[in-house]
């Protein structure tokens, strides 16, 4: 009988590298949507701080650090990436498991911003979209999440089922950027 083994969304699709830019799947242990109930943002933030060491992020921002990060994830919602969410938050916020719902890709390398410029209308300029800034936006036809996690490193997320399209569109954009090297 087939064993119930787990498969990541990007298995067999990622990683790949083109022109010095890499696209690698990240597989955090858990991802949980935290949506504070009406008027409970402060309590939820305090509980998040106490349990995981980070406050709830403001719109367009993220808190925490690599391995345990909270992204603003839309209206009244944050996404805790990394640790399994502490049950204490459930008193102040709706918690919804999203661990399997998204593919998380780290796009890294000199020119990664140029790759993203072919996929999203966001203004990702150095002084505008700084490390820790995050947005929900269009990513090559798909509704995605984009977070700057380093000087040349970006975390991008789309729904799990889009993994192959994400790879296809990244591949095309990365080849286009790589072909311009030195031009």
């Amino acid at each position, binding site marked *: *009988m*087939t*064993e*119930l*083994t*787990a*498969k*990541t*969304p990007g298995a067999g699709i990622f990683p790949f590298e*083109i022109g010095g830019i890499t696209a690698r799947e990240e597989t955090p242990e858990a991802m949980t*949507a935290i*949506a504070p*109930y*009406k008027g409970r943002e402060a309590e939820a933030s305090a509980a998040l701080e106490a349990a995981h060491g980070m406050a709830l992020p403001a719109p367009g921002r993220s808190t925490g650090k690599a391995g345990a990060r909270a992204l603003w994830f839309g*209206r*009244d*919602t944050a996404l805790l990436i990394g640790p399994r969410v502490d049950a204490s938050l459930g008193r102040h*916020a*709706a918690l*919804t*498991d*999203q*661990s*399997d*719902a*998204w593919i998380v890709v780290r796009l890294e390398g000199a020119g990664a911003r*140029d790759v993203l*410029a*072919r996929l*999203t*209308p*966001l*203004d*990702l*300029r150095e*002084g*505008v979209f700084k490390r820790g800034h995050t947005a929900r936006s269009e990513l*090559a*036809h*798909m509704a995605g999440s984009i977070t700057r996690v380093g000087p040349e490193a970006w975390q991008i997320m789309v*729904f*799990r*089922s*889009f*993994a*192959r*399209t994400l790879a*296809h*569109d990244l591949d*095309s*954009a990365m*080849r*286009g950027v*790589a*072909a*311009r090297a030195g*031009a």
Partner: protein
Amino acid sequence: MRIDGKGLIDRRKPISFRFDGQRYDGFAGDTLASALLANDIRLMGRSFKYHRPRGVLTAGSEEPNALVTTGLGPAQEPNVRATTLELYEGLMARSQNRWPSLGFDLMAVNDLAAPFLGAGFYYKTFMWPKAFWEKIYEPVIRNAAGLGALSGEANSDKYEKAFAHCDLLVIGAGPAGLWAAMEGARAGLDVILCDEDTQPGGRLNAETETVGGMAGAEWAASVVAELRAMGNVRIMTRTAVIGAYDGGTYGALERLAPEVAQRPGAARECFWRITAGQAVLAAGAIERPVAFRNNDRPGIMTAGAVRAYLNRWNVTAGRNIAVYGNTDEAHRSVRDLQAAGLHVSALIDARPHATCDLDVPFFAGAEVSNAEGRQALEAVEIRTAKGVEKIRAECLAMSGGWNPNVHLTCHMGGRPVWDRDIAAFVPQPGAVPGLHVAGAARGVFDTAGCLADGRRAARAALEALGRKAAEVDLPEAETARYDIWPVWAVPGKGRAWLDFQNDVTVKDVRQAAVENFRSVEHMKRYTTQGMATDQGKNSNVAALAVLADATGRGIPETGTTTFRPPFVPVSIAALGAGAQGKGFAPQRFTTSHDASVARGAPMIEAGLWYRPSYFPQAGETHWRQSCDREVQMVRRAVGVSDVSTLGKIDIQGPDAGAFLDMVYTGMFSTLKEGRVRYGLMLREDGYVMDDGTTARMGADHYVMTTTTAAAGQVMRHLDFVHQCLCPQMDVRFISVTEQWAQFAVAGPKARDLLTELLGADQVDLPFMGCGAVRIDEIDARLFRISFSGEAGYEIAVPARYGAALFERLCEMAEARDGGPYGMEALNVLRIEKGFITHAEIHGRVTAKDIGMGGMVSAKKDCVGKPMAARPGLSEDLREELVGLRPLGEIKELPAGAHLFDEGAEAMAENDQGYVTSSCYSPSCESVLALGFLKNGRARHGERVRLVDHLRGVDTICEVQDPVQFDADGGRMRD
């Protein structure tokens, strides 16, 4: 002819290319046009209508004549301007619109028929018979007249689109643009500097001028180097800004350098969307030709182009050159030509008051009245007060003055303003918010003036951005007076060309006025002046000046036609970059996708999702065989189907129940924990939006399912209802469609299968029950719901386990004479049961229409309820959901067919309804259909006529209850 000189070509890098099959040589830095002139090729094309021989007129993107086709097969690109086509090794270009060859074009017979082919000829001649226009006249005319052609094959080249953002966008890198960029950059702005040319510099690359103590082109290069080194300036060459749009957004087309475009993975062109805080338009000006008899002979060029070819590319179209102009620039042309050692045979200055200090035959107050030579210019006729004189010339440098490039300033409805001093239109100030015009684009025609104007525009932009200007000294540059004597058309016999691209003459424009096409927009459409690839860049102002004269109005009263994007031609491939093949739409794959494909299932699209149609087995040669088997398998044993694509929404909060009561017609706040209820959702207008089941997982926790097709729409609707209709409710929701892989397990042996999987106690659920279960330590969810009419369950696991669980379920089903089933069988099973999909709830049906009027709770309000009570939606004679079975000889009941009373004529007035879904039912051993019939519920048992006009079906069928199998639902409950 190539001459000595210090142009911007690299003579150490020879390049060979082909034109009409013949091999030629040029240098790096050449355009096709300059390289052809270097090889003494003056004839480069044939005109659109009369097939007249034409040579290059300009040295820029406004070129109307020298259009060529490059590439072969799928890579074929027509109408490429030789003036902007960079020379590269192996380039193969072909001339257009000629047969059999450019030098000997049989279609030139049209030129002899010219007296009959004037403006409006086609409209007057091919009026009758009417049906002939589309089928005969138009194809023949299009074949005879035209530009280059596409190959008919799908384009094989890659195109990109990309976004860019900046504080200041500078459009054009001539002196005004360069200096505006410098001012912006020194003030610390993020600057994007775009220029359609391969090299920044604008006219400085074409003139012999001194700026900042050095040659103009050198100065431009030094500014570019300085800007590049600053780090906050992005210089985009080969990039034409083609349109100004709302909110500081500009469209731009970038042609990649040939050596880059040829690399693997590279795009040929990139379409940019640039969002800028402020912009400076320094797009320069375009020189206008003068209309005189035979002014289209190869060798006649704008004077600015002659100087550009001379100074930048070190080529000339002849040794003997005549110069004809109406400003001091004519004298500049003579100076440059003489300095290059060329013979200037005449300087014709239209200004009667002009004087000349050059050693050249000089004619003040004179005009060129005719040109001789057919495939190449041989001589010009000069008309003075004393008479007509003929002078030898292989090239004529002509200028009627300059038109500022106001194009982009008019993209939001602005109209340019006539400036009498320069006899040209200038931009209306503030026509595009945040766009400041500078330099020649504003009618400032000397270099010193342009630099200062660039500074002024940049500082206006800085002020708008709240930034401080830096102190930068303006470099020294030449000043000049622009003293123009307007000349539009030289009087005389014969044809004088205004629009070279569309073969429109002075006479054509006058004819339009005579026939009362007096408005400039009517004149344009009557004569075709200003159409095609150059969009009248060379001819618009002169044409309307002629029209103004013919109608006795002034030029400002006559006005211009409307300027619209794009400024230069943009291929559809660039606009739609990336949207071919897999780039057309994203693909969504379920976790069972690979397993379904491995089992040979043809995958069909359901929205963006891919789902299996059926799972063929050995010996099955037709989809119906597989489908029938799968239906019977579910009815007799057990089937497994991936239903993960249905939308799933996690809803939590103290007001979750109340919120569901608001969005569903039924009551959900009273649903017991651990139970599932079917729900119907209405749009605000009272029609059915979607249906699905919602499970109550906990006191404040529900999981809603939607149809696959409407998942996004429902999510959006919930957001709307929460944000706008009941913001007071404390409820939170998020999509979990992708979090859970969910499988239907249906059939008499479903319970047995799940007992083996989960153990008997976990499977012990009542009909419409739900609960958390565990499979091998994995948290899962089990729902006892059925879309097949059989005892059915749906089991959900975190998506990472989806692929494995599907395999295991298939194995377990196969051990029970069951297996996977696809969309076809799923559809048959639900039609047998009368279950609806979006084929039935297609947006124009009410709850009552589908027999669910009773599901609209009387105890509460819900979205859509008041509007559903409108008379038109609640009256009795609406079309209602019914089942249909064939009675006649023809057993087909195709979806889309219409219903009529038996004996009634099958016409729209007699329409009684239509078929929405249809299948062959192995369970009922009959074709079955669902459809809507006027007052249908009261007509069960009646005979109706079914007609499908498209497929030619005409038969009789019987009206039934929509539920045609297991009417009491015992199979799924027991």
